[in-house]
C-alpha cells in the first residue's frame, strides 16, 4: 500500500470521526435481506396497515421491478438483494428520552439531539434504522392543532388527511427509487400545520443508519395549510462500513395559499451510503416553498428538490450546497416548474470539489404554457480546490410560453491563487486562507440558516477542509 493511500484513509476517518461510531443494539425484528412481495407483505403485517396501504406498496413494488435504472447521474453499483429493507429497533416509540433504549438514546446524545431539543427546537423526531424511536412536540403547538408524528402513526391516526396527499405529489411511477420507497417505506415525518399557525422554532428530524448493508426508506409528508408557516430541518449520519448502504427517501410537501414552508437538510452520511432521494413541493396561490439543501456526505447523492408553482403568485426558492471529497459524487440540483402566471422561482447552487471529489449541478427550469409573466432565475457557482477534482453543470431549460423572464448564470472557478496570496500576505496560513475562501463561497447560503445550523454547517466545512492543503 502506498503512503499516499494510507494518509488519505487517515484523513477520511478524522473527517467523519464524530459520526463514525457503531451502536451495539438488539433489533426487535429484522427482515431477511432482499426485496420482494414477501418482504413487502411482512412490513405491512408488522405495521398492521390498512389494506389500501398494502396494495399501494405491492403496486409500487411492481413498478420498481419494471423500471430500468436511471441512465444519467452517478454510477450506482448496488445489489438490491444484498440489502436489509426493514429493521425495527424497539417495540415502541418513546415520548421521553427515558423511554428510549439506553444504547440508542446514547447514540442521539452523542449526536447532540436532546441538547438541541432543549435549546431551540419546537419538536423532534429521531429515526434509527427503519423506525422513529422518539418523538416530541411542544404542547402549545399540539394545542393549536399542529400534528407532528411519524408517518406510520399518521396512517393509523389521521388516515383521511394523509390519504388526500400521500403519493399524490410524487407518484410511485415517478422514478425507480420513488417506487422502491413506496414499496418498503417506513418512518419519516408527518406534519400538518393548521391555517394561520406560525411555528416560530424549527421542527427537526434526525435520521441515523447504524447497521451495515442497511436500507433506510423514510417517507415524509408536510402539509402547511393556508397562511401557516413552518421550518423543518433534517440531519442524517451513519458510521463507515466497507460495504454500501442505501438511503432512499420520498418527501412530499404541500404549501397552501399564503403559506410558507422552509425545508432544510444537512446531509452528512458516511462515504459508503447511496443517497437517492426524491423531494417535491406543490406551492399554491401566493405560497412560498424554500428548500435549503446541504449535501456533504454520502458516496453518491442524486437529489433534486423540486417546487411546482401551481397557482398564481407562488414562489419557489432552492438553495443547494454540495461538497464532494475523495470517493464522493454529489449529483445535486433543483427543479422549478412554473404552472401558473406570475410565479417566481430562484435556484442558487454552490458546489465545492476537492481531493478528487466530483460535484455536478443538475437542474430543470420549466415554464408551462399559460404561465405568463413568470420569472425564473438560476445561478450555479462551482469551486474546484485542486486538479484531481471535477465539476459539471447540466442545466435543462424548457420554456413553453412567450412572456416570461428566464436567467441562467453559471461559473466555475479554481480557488484563486490571487485570493490565497492576498490572505496569506496578511498572515493567514494557506489552510486558514483556503477554509476562509470556501466559507465565503457558501456564505450567501449559510447566512440563510438559523444560527445553530450555520455554526454546524461551518464546522462540517471545516472538517471537510482539514488537511486539504498539502
Amino acid at each position, binding site marked *: 500500500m502506498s503512503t499516499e493511500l494510507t494518509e488519505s484513509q487517515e484523513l477520511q476517518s478524522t473527517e467523519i470521526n464524530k459520526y463514525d461510531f457503531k451502536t451495539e443494539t438488539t433489533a426487535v425484528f429484522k427482515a431477511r435481506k432482499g426485496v420482494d412481495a414477501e418482504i413487502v407483505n411482512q412490513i405491512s403485517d408488522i405495521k398492521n396497515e390498512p389494506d389500501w396501504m398494502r396494495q399501494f406498496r405491492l403496486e409500487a413494488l411492481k413498478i420498481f421491478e419494471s423500471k430500468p435504472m436511471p441512465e444519467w447521474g452517478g454510477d450506482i453499483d448496488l445489489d438490491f438483494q444484498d440489502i436489509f429493507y426493514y429493521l425495527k429497533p424497539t417495540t415502541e416509540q418513546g415520548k421521553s428520552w427515558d423511554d428510549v433504549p439506553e444504547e440508542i438514546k446514547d447514540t442521539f446524545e452523542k449526536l447532540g439531539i436532546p441538547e438541541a431539543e432543549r435549546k431551540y427546537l419546537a419538536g423532534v423526531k429521531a429515526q434509527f434504522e427503519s423506525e422513529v424511536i422518539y418523538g416530541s412536540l411542544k404542547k402549545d403547538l399540539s394545542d393549536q392543532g399542529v400534528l407532528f408524528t411519524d408517518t406510520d402513526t399518521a396512517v393509523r391516526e389521521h388516515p383521511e388527511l394523509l390519504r388526500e396527499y400521500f403519493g399524490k405529489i410524487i407518484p410511485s411511477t415517478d422514478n425507480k427509487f420513488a417506487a422502491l420507497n413506496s414499496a418498503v417505506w417506513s418512518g419519516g415525518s408527518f406534519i400538518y400545520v393548521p391555517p394561520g399557525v406560525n411555528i416560530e422554532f424549527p421542527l427537526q428530524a434526525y435520521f441515523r443508519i447504524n447497521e451495515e448493508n442497511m436500507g433506510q426508506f423514510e417517507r415524509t409528508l408536510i402539509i402547511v395549510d393556508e397562511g401557516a408557516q413552518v421550518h423543518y430541518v433534517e440531519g442524517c449520519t451513519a458510521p463507515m462500513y466497507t460495504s454500501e448502504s442505501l438511503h432512499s427517501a420520498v418527501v412530499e410537501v404541500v404549501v397552501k395559499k399564503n403559506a410558507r414552508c422552509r425545508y432544510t437538510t444537512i446531509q452528512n452520511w458516511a462515504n459508503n451510503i447511496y443517497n437517492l432521494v426524491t423531494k417535491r413541493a406543490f406551492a399554491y396561490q401566493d405560497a412560498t416553498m424554500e428548500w435549503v439543501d446541504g449535501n456533504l456526505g454520502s458516496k453518491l447523492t442524486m437529489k433534486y428538490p423540486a417546487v411546482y408553482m401551481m397557482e398564481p403568485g407562488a414562489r419557489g426558492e432552492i438553495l443547494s450546497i454540495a461538497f464532494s471529497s475523495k470517493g464522493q459524487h454529489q449529483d445535486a440540483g433543483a427543479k422549478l416548474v412554473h404552472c401558473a402566471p406570475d410565479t417566481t422561482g430562484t435556484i442558487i447552487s454552490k458546489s465545492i470539489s476537492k481531493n478528487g471529489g466530483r460535484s455536478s449541478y443538475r437542474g430543470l427550469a420549466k415554464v408551462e404554457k399559460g404561465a405568463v409573466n413568470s420569472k425564473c432565475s438560476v445561478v450555479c457557482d462551482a469551486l474546484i480546490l485542486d486538479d484531481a477534482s471535477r465539476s459539471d453543470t447540466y442545466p435543462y431549460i424548457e420554456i413553453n410560453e412567450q412572456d416570461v423572464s428566464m436567467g441562467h448564470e453559471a461559473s466555475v472557478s479554481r480557488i*484563486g*491563487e*490571487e*485570493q490565497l*496570496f*492576498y*490572505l*496569506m*500576505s*496578511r*498572515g*493567514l*496560513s*494557506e*489552510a*486558514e*486562507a483556503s477554509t*476562509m*475562501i470556501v*466559507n*465565503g*463561497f*457558501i*456564505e*450567501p447560503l449559510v447566512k440563510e440558516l438559523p444560527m445553530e445550523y450555520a455554526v454546524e454547517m461551518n464546522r462540517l466545512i471545516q472538517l471537510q477542509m482539514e488537511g486539504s492543503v498539502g
Partner: protein
Amino acid sequence: MSDVLKIVDLHVSIGDKEILRGVNLSMTEGETHALMGPNGSGKSTLGLAIMGHPNYNCTKGEILLNGENILELEPNERARAGIFMAFQRPVAIPGVKMADFLRHATTNVRNPDRKEGEDLIPMREFRKEIKANMEQLQMDSEFARRYVNDGFSGGEMKRAEILQLAMLQPKFAILDETDSGLDADAVRLASQSINEIGHNKMGLLIITHHDKLLEHNPPNFTHVILGGRIVETGGKELAEELHAEGYDRIRKQYPEAAKVNDESESEAEVVV
C-alpha cells in the same frame, strides 16, 4: 537596534521573462523611501517579490530582514515577520467579512507562532481597536461587515488597505499606488492617515505617481527604477524633479536601461 530591510542584487522573473535585473536597496525603520519609475520599470514587481507572490520567481540575490534571508518564507511567514504590502488593486474575497478576515490577520501577525484553530484575539479588544482605526479613516462602521474588497469603490479599496496597515503595524510597508484613483480630498485623507500610522515609525516604501502622498510623507530617499534596475538614488528633491519634469532626463542619462524598459513596457506589467 533598528530594523533593517536589505535587498541585494535581486533578480526576479515571471515565467521566463526577467523583470528585475539586480536591485539593491536598503531601508531602516522610520525611513520613508519613494520608488519612482515609468510604466513597466518593475516597481510593483519589487513589492510583490518582497511580499512573496508565488508567480514572482527570485532567480538571484537576497532579501534580508535584520540579516536573515526571507526568500524561502511563505507570504504568511513574511507577514508575521513584519512585512506588509498595500496592493494597487486588491482582490475581492466574496462572502468573507472584513472584520472576520482582519481579526484572523491581526491575531496571526501579533502572535507569529499561532497555529490554525488556536484562539483569536478577544472580540471586545479587537472591536475597540478596529472601530478607532475606522473612525480615523472616516469609514462607516458598516464597512467591517462588508465582504473583503467585494464591490468596493476605488477609494474604499485603498482605505481598506490603509486600515489593514493600521491594524497590522508592520515593520516595513510597501504602498503600491495607495493614492491612485482617488479624488483630491481622498488623496489628502489617505496621505495624512499614512503619515499618522507609519511615517517616522515604520520603514515605508512608497510607489506613487502623485506628489500629494510624498508631500505629507516626505521621503528620506528617492529611488528611480528603470528597466528593472535602480539607476539613481537621491533625496526628496529628486522626487520633486521627476514630478515636475518627468523621466526624459533619466532616460537620456541611462539609455541602456531605457531600452530594456521600452521593451518590457510593450508587454503589460503584471499587477495584483
